[in-house]
């Protein structure tokens, strides 16, 4: 396990290596992918990416929370949360090597 962080930079570079576009345009296309997904989710759509997973919106009802420091009761308003469900393919890719023995 290497435990480092991958960002837009590396994903943009991968797109650049894969398709004959400039680095700039590759970065823009990566951003466009993320924006399209965000737009769909903001519209309440479920986004299903085969062999990766699905993103869906779940509505949470109002409940009473508590400030853990003061013990004071505060209402938590109804809100929407995003839920990611990994596909079976992604789950098995993550478990296919033997990192478990060292972890």
């Amino acid at each position, binding site marked *: 396990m290497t435990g480092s962080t991958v960002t837009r930079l590396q994903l943009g570079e991968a797109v650049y290596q894969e398709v004959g576009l400039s680095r700039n345009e590759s970065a823009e*296309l990566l951003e466009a992918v993320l924006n399209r997904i*965000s737009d769909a989710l903001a519209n309440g759509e479920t986004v*299903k990416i085969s062999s990766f997973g699905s993103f869906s919106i779940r509505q949470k009802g109002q409940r009473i929370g508590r400030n853990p420091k003061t013990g004071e009761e505060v209402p938590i308003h109804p809100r929407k949360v995003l839920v990611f469900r990994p596909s079976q393919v992604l789950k098995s890719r993550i478990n296919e090597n033997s990192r478990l023995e060292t972890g």
Partner: protein
Amino acid sequence: MTKSELIARLAEANPHLYHRDVERIVTTVFEEITNALAIGNRVELRGFGAFSVKNRGPRIGRNPRTGEAVDVSAKYIPYFKTGKKLRERLNAGS
């Protein structure tokens, strides 16, 4: 929206690109995220969210039909935490 609809929407917005290239771009993005997670890396996309891998320890499960105890071995699970900007967008106007 499915992956092919995502590709179609992107292709429509980028008429100067080959449909095949848009397909490769989308596939590459998700493959890279998968590859990073498979070697234990975290993928952080500010404003969108972060993908990481969490460790689930071994546990004793139960066959819900028979009630029989079964060993469930330790495993890793992919996890996604929604980014601040996206979370705010989901709740905008409510």
